[in-house]
């Protein structure tokens, strides 16, 4: 998969196969192409060349496949004058899906704030709405872009346990994050992007074994330094 914004090459030859039932964390320095990669999978950003397949079928220029994906953006942007209730009801109205998983709405007590306007919400509350929307339709694939950034520790805990719960159902969950300790709790594998290319893609256990470190953050730092030295 290749993608460039103008002259800026964001993704250069990212090729990876992800298996369901795993939590995969995408890490890498700022501007490495993590968000771009997730947006490509969602069809929000169209790759210059390359292909994206879900269950063996190319998803480029398609739209129906997105019913299988729950997306939580890094910065959720919502129509400012809509209330939380309206946003959630609108999405449900448009999707018309029978199965609804409103566990997060309950846990985050969003119903108490249903009549607040999106524009008046704090960043953290917006993130809660994003999270609730991402999990709402019980999707097979979840893409969470820095999900805990801006969430209070308590809300982040709820999200983490939700992620682990969904993983047990055999879903594929992609998380981009910078917080290694958090990833260590939920993720199985680490995909490291640097300058738009994959630097390594290993399970956490393998990483630790290779670098002989007990903490993921140190292991990753070692791997990245090693790569830079090469």
């Amino acid at each position: 998969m290749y993608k460039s914004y103008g002259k800026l090459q964001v993704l250069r030859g990212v090729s990876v196969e992800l298996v369901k039932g795993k939590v995969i964390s995408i890490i890498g320095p700022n501007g490495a192409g993590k968000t771009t990669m997730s947006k490509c999978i969602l069809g929000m950003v169209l790759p210059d060349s390359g292909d994206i397949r879900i269950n063996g079928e190319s998803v480029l220029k398609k739209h129906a496949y997105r019913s299988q994906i729950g997306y939580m953006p890094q910065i959720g942007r919502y129509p400012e004058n809509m209330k939380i209730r309206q946003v959630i009801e609108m999405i449900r109205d448009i999707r018309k899906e029978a199965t609804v998983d409103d566990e997060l709405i309950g846990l985050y007590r969003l119903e108490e704030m249903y009549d607040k306007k999106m524009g008046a919400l704090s960043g953290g509350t917006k993130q809660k709405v994003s999270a609730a929307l991402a999990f709402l339709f019980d999707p097979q694939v979840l893409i969470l872009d820095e999900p805990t950034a801006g969430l209070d520790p308590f809300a982040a805990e709820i999200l983490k346990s939700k992620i682990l719960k969904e993983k047990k159902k055999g879903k594929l969950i992609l998380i981009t994050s910078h917080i290694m300790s958090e990833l260590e709790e939920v993720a199985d594998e680490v995909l490291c992007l640097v300058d738009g290319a994959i630097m390594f893609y290993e399970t956490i256990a393998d990483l630790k074994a290779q670098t002989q470190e007990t903490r993921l953050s140190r292991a990753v730092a070692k791997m990245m330094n090693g790569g830079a030295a090469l």
Partner: protein
Amino acid sequence: MNKIIKYVLYDIVRSKIVVAYTLFLLLLSIGLFNLGGSPDKGLLSLLNLVLLTVPLISIVFATTHFYNSYEFMELLVSQPIRRSRIFLSEYWGVSLSLSAAFLLGVGVPVLLFAPGATGLYLVLTGLFVTFIFVALAFLASVITRDKAKGIGIALLLWFYFALIYDGIVLLILYSFGDYPLEYATLALTALNPVDLGRVMVLLNLDVSAMMGYTGALYKSIFGSAWGVGIAFLVLLLWVLVPLLTSRRVFQKRDI
């Protein structure tokens, strides 16, 4: 498609700008019909004002609406919805609400004060101009992400079609006055939807003499049903070309 249009309309109605626009048109029409003696005079003044204000308000409102709905579209793009559906729903939402405002603000007074073929042409022209300028506004909006730039382009388009274009046509006619220019002027008219609409209504008003240079030729062409049909076809093209172009751009752009 209908569901998304519903939410677009809901958003527009709440902003109250469309309501103000309706009232403005209503005041304008009733005022002009009461001011001039004959309904024909009223129609003529109304035509000139409608062709100046409707494109301006349509293009500015549609452009700002497009940029203000960016979050809404962003939210929908990650859902299993075709992008063109999102885009066209926005288009229909904006153009239908502006058309409704126009029908209420101009259509109803025309029906009351000056019913007839000319009034019908005026209303049809106004509706087409609304659809055309909303399409042009969307084209301006997809060209750039910068809201200020987008509105700038939209205003430039309005300036061009409402003011500059006529100046260019006059300049051409004046400089090449020694050559037979009938068909050239006809082509030039077709290249500006505002002028095309104006000519169609004027010919029905039987004041084509006021148009100077090209009146006679227009009369012979737009006087027939065939000519009017072609003119409406050209107006339809003026809707479709910018609309489909901007839809194409929107489908290929990164959100």
